């Protein structure tokens, strides 16, 4: 890890440091999970309040107490003979582990309950499906020389590495409780792979350096700022909290190699996809309502959008066809509140 951002974590470990009845390996795994949990939680907490103390301190206490109770529960079983005592110890450990893991998991899920009071996405019972293909239509008068990286089938023009998303103005929160996921962005052959990633707010991205050279990974986006050196083989995990949506990606760079770039699109809802080489996208269980279907290709600076009125039970199909006419000056066209344009002047090392 590149930096210690979590001054409150040792407290949590201290409380967790006396777990009777569990093998040490499981205790260690518990530490790791709790550390990860608190790193995420503290990160969000610190950004909101400027302080490092755990917001969910009581969650730790609950977990530790519950685990002690679980162990005591197994202790009230009748005392068996010598062989049975061995069995009881094994049983005791298994029950304690089960309860502990369940509680830790519950704690994580509880910790991800959104604090926002804004509206959730509409009822998922009343849903439709939207699917389609993103197609790039070239113009020989205005050639896009980098199209070769993104359009593998020139005859069909299927455009890869676009972000397609539904946009509704009242989606402001992550939605129902869910497990935090971790995407991977590697630094390999002096490039971020993949270049374009889309995640939910609160998800993590693990950055890796598979090159032998020293790299760096940074973002100067307000709310998602970090700047970490990456030695060969290094890793860094970052949690992205602010949802900039399709109009305000987190731009990732390497301070030592300015040509290296990547985009992380952070959404407050689940209706987003990054197209593969077939250009296809599909959203199912879309609640009825009014939406904007938007597509952005950050490397090509291509933007497309269409307003939709979706009714329950519909299955809509769209071919999103873009050309140089869809070129935009900037891929950051819709800034969320509190996120400002970065003013940092990245240091350069060559001339």
């Amino acid at each position, binding site marked *: 890890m590149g930096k210690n951002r979590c001054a409150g974590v040792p407290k949590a470990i201290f409380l967790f440091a006396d777990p009777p009845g569990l093998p040490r390996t499981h205790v260690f795994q518990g530490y790791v999970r709790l550390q990860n949990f608190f790193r995420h939680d503290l990160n969000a907490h610190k950004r909101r309040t400027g302080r490092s103390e755990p917001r969910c301190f009581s969650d730790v206490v609950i977990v530790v107490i519950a685990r002690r109770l679980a162990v005591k529960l197994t202790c009230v079983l009748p005392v068996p003979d010598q062989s049975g005592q061995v069995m009881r110890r094994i049983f005791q450990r298994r029950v304690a582990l089960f309860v502990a893991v369940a509680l830790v998991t519950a704690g994580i899920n509880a910790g991800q309950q959104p604090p926002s009071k804004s509206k959730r996405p509409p009822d998922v019972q009343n849903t439709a499906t939207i699917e389609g293909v993103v197609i790039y239509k070239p113009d020989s008068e205005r050639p896009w020389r980098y199209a070769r990286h993104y359009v593998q089938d020139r005859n069909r023009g299927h455009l890869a590495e676009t972000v397609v998303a539904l946009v509704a103005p009242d989606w402001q929160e992550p939605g129902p409780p869910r497990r935090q996921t971790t995407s991977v962005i590697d630094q390999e052959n002096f490039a971020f792979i993949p270049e374009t990633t889309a995640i939910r707010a609160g998800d993590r991205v693990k950055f890796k350096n598979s090159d032998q050279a020293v790299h760096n990974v940074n973002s100067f986006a307000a709310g998602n700022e970090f700047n970490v050196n990456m030695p060969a083989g290094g890793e860094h995990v970052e949690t992205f909290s602010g949802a900039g949506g399709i109009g305000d990606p987190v731009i990732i760079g390497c301070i030592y190699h300015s040509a290296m770039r990547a985009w992380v699109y952070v959404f407050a809802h689940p209706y987003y996809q990054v197209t593969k080489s077939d250009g296809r996208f599909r959203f199912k269980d879309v609640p009825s309502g009014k939406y904007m279907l938007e597509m952005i290709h950050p490397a090509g600076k291509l933007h497309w959008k269409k307003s939709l009125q979706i009714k329950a039970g519909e299955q809509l199909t769209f071919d999103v066809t873009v050309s140089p006419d869809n070129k935009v000056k900037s891929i950051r066209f819709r800034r969320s509140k509190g996120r400002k344009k970065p003013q940092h002047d990245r240091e*350069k090392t060559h*001339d």
Partner: protein
Amino acid sequence: MTKQVTSRRGALKTGSAVATAVLAGMSMPDFVFPGQQPAEELVPFLNMPRTGPNRLDWETLDSWFTPQDQVFSVQHYGIPEFDTENHQVEVTGLVDRPGTLTLDQLRDLPKKDQLMTLECSGNGASKGFMNAIYNSRWTGTPLAPILRSCGIKPEAKEVVFFGVDRKEETLREGTNSELKIEVPFGRSMSVQDALNLDLLLSYERNGEPIESRNGAPVRLIVPGWYGIANVKWLRRIELRDGRYMGRYMGRDYVTVRGERHGNEVVFVESSVTKMRLKSMVARVTRQAARDGNVPTKAYGAVWSDGTEVKRVEVKVDDGSWREAALDKEPRSKYCWTFFSIDLGALQPGKHTVVSRAIDVKDRIQPSTEDEEIALKKTYWEANQQWVREIELEV
């Protein structure tokens, strides 16, 4: 929802299917290297990053003059914001008649075009920095007559060029005598070089006003020298009687290279100045396989500090060096020259392709194993041969 985590290695493992699909789908290439036949199709280099914006895209190199959207720019003190319309260039120091030149006065002086390939001295140091080079026409007025008209005093030895850009520098960092001081960006050369190297005070590039990031409104152009010498946002020209040792002359952009003296290797520090002899395979193309082998050609560019290039040679795998054909035109002394070579029908599979340049002084572009590169401890002046990797499918 969907996450796309694509490994480049994984992509390469399926390279055959993908390459076949790409080649089948390419009815006509969008970009054609001069001399390339329509039936030729690009063979992508393996293990290379995609080219970013404002960098030369080698694989689609199609123009002797580099398009503006592929022109790199690097600034160490940031792009300065200042009144460019009323900008003046000052000539001062050890001259009899110091003075200033407004932009209108500069434009009224004799106009000259300078064709030049401008390369960053770190270009080629790693695969992450391979694209910082461009070729263009700079228009301005020659500097030498201006210096002479100001009356160069006999004691003047050095000409220093200062830009508008400034930054705080720290000297003796971490010591008791640490000093922080704001300085302008500066580079220098001898008076003799300043009078004889066809220096230009340039205000146009490719017939258009210079872009801000490329040094508007006035940039010093030093044909045959690395990019760092071409001072952007030129503000002041000062003649001095001693060495100027600013950061970018004395502490940075200093090449440390080991030289053999008998059995001893002596490391010598020198300021980055003249461009070194260099060539690069820009792209490899193929045609449809015949009898199980793939007809293949290579195209590239060669450049130097203005010293004439005698020939370029290309080698496939561990084969012998074969001479490439240098384009007869377009050519200009300080510009790159394009070359091409028919590599013949190669067997399917992975290959390496590399070029080397040889000039009229019989200097040979070194490989990474040659001591000229192997004993170089800094990344500037990175003119080593660059080995391209390709994979051919039937």
